């Protein structure tokens, strides 16, 4: 039983095709990386997987049930999406913000229990924001906001983590520690991850499977060691890319035109 399955999926945004007849299966225990050049529609695809956009053709199944047939609230207990950006217009503290991740787990008349607040504080500690819980969100730096958004997703605690450029704004240390933690959390729930990345080296390091969005009709997907090659990457980005085998694994270096 696959966690997420797209069958002959065709989607477009503002009339521009993103994919034509895409077939892909995300199984529990897998970690998928989506790579593509700017404007290839990676975010659009991820939003469609999350059920936020309609499809033109084809179906998406989550746990073998059509995505559209899931009650929104029940779905959000099992499927979480880290958006590319978060924008907070109204003042709010870090703790209040992270607690909105509990929303799908509470009935409308329920309030956060002490246990929910524990989860929130634990998630803040997981992203090293435990000392910032009373700070206003608009005083946080870009990287701290990113960590807060990840903490909110941890509080939501889904089975399938859809991550839109999770490493945006993060320094090297947090890129590694937070990705490792997200992979661990998905493992704990026996779930899966699917993330949009720009760094092929992070993809080799954490992903088991890769989807390369070369063109709407040419989306290459498969196991990381088979798909993530210098040839494919050069085709993807229309740019020379060199693979170097090291003791730590394969790394990719961009060349120059």
């Amino acid at each position: 039983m696959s966690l997420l399955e797209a069958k002959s999926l065709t989607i477009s945004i503002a009339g521009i095709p993103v994919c034509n007849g895409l077939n892909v299966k995300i199984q529990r225990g897998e970690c998928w990386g989506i790579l593509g050049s700017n404007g290839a529609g990676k975010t659009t695809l991820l939003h469609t997987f999350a059920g936020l956009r309609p499809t033109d053709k084809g179906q998406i199944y989550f746990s073998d049930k059509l995505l559209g047939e899931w009650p929104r609230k029940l779905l959000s207990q099992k499927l979480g999406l880290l958006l590319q950006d978060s924008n907070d217009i109204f003042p709010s503290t870090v703790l209040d913000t992270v607690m909105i991740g509990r929303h799908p787990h509470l009935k409308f008349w329920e309030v956060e229990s002490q246990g929910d607040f524990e989860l929130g504080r634990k998630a803040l500690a997981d992203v090293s924001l435990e000392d910032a819980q009373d700070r206003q969100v608009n005083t946080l730096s870009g990287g701290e906001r990113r960590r807060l958004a990840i903490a909110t997703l941890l509080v939501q605690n889904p089975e399938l983590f859809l991550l839109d450029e999770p490493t945006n704004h993060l320094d090297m240390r947090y890129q590694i520690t937070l990705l490792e933690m997200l992979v661990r959390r998905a493992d704990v729930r026996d779930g899966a991850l699917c993330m949009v990345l720009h760094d092929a080296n992070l993809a080799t390091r954490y992903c088991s499977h890769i989807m390369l969005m070369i063109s709407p009709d040419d989306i290459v997907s498969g196991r990381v060691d088979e798909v993530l090659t210098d040839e494919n990457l050069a085709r993807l980005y229309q740019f020379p890319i060199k693979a170097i085998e090291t003791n730590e694994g394969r790394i990719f270096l961009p060349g120059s035109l």
Partner: protein
Amino acid sequence: MQKKRNEKNEGFAPNNRVMNKKPGSISAVFVSKHIVLFAVLTFSIIGIFIASLLIGSVDISAKQLLHALWVQDDSLVSNVVLELRLPRTVVGFMVGAMLALAGALMQVLLRNPLAEPYILGISGGASVAVLTTMLLGLSGFWISGSAFIGAMISMLLVFGLAHGKGDWSPVRLLLTGIVIAAGWGALISLILSITQGPQLRSMLFWLMGDLSYATYSNWSLLTLIGCLLVSLVIARSLNVLARGEMQAATLGVSPKRVRYIVYFLSSMLAASAVTLAGNVGFVGLIVPHMIRLMIGSDHRVLLPASFMLGGGLVMLADCLARTVIAPQQLPVGVLTAIIGIPVFLVLLRRQL
């Protein structure tokens, strides 16, 4: 007294009750902070309410007031209190509460801190209808009736036009509302420019917000209570929606459905407030921000607290409007601004 007050406060902040059972935690600190706010609000409202019954062109002592309320005879004092001051004070509270609640809702709906109850043309539609009625020489029931009808027409017009091809984004709604409001504004200017004499004065008073002809109605009270209850039910969804529609959708909130409810609630509240007292400005914009500056943006606290502060502020403003240059009266809308602006600026300064 202390105990009684706390019970009332907890009724307004449903999230406090459960958390309060576990003292000694950090959230208990949060709760006690809210309890202080609600205690101060309740105490102030009671104080202003009593003062509003006592003060005016005829001075009434506390003893006379109690007598008038208990005995309800045909004396002058009894008449003044029961026929004039009590309904006017209650209506003042209702208008303020409606506007503040509508403002808080409108700000989430449009995700814009500058939003206020009149921004989408509700009051413009009501104003055009009322001024037309006044121009025709009608008064009394016709004024409030036409205000409500004008507000509803404007509400449906904006709703329909903003809907377009299924997309109902905050920006589109905001722009549609602002354009419609500008249209109403032009019509208001047109009517004012062709009106002369005493009619013009009563029109200007109505436009500035005036409680002197306000009459209490059970419908308004029902609207107010109903809207408050519904908004408390969806309050946690509003916390999520305030972070954006996408974020809300990923957390299981249907943004469209919640936004329809919020549009309907805030429009009904604004329409009812305009029907009762004309354009009382400023309350709907500033009161929610005052509360946000004090306690943050949790709508489960923000909505009831705005309700109370808005009501109290308009009661206080009306109290002063009746007495500052008595026997002449000032439009209450002017006083709400004069009281509210310095308080708001102090809060803003303290926060930054």
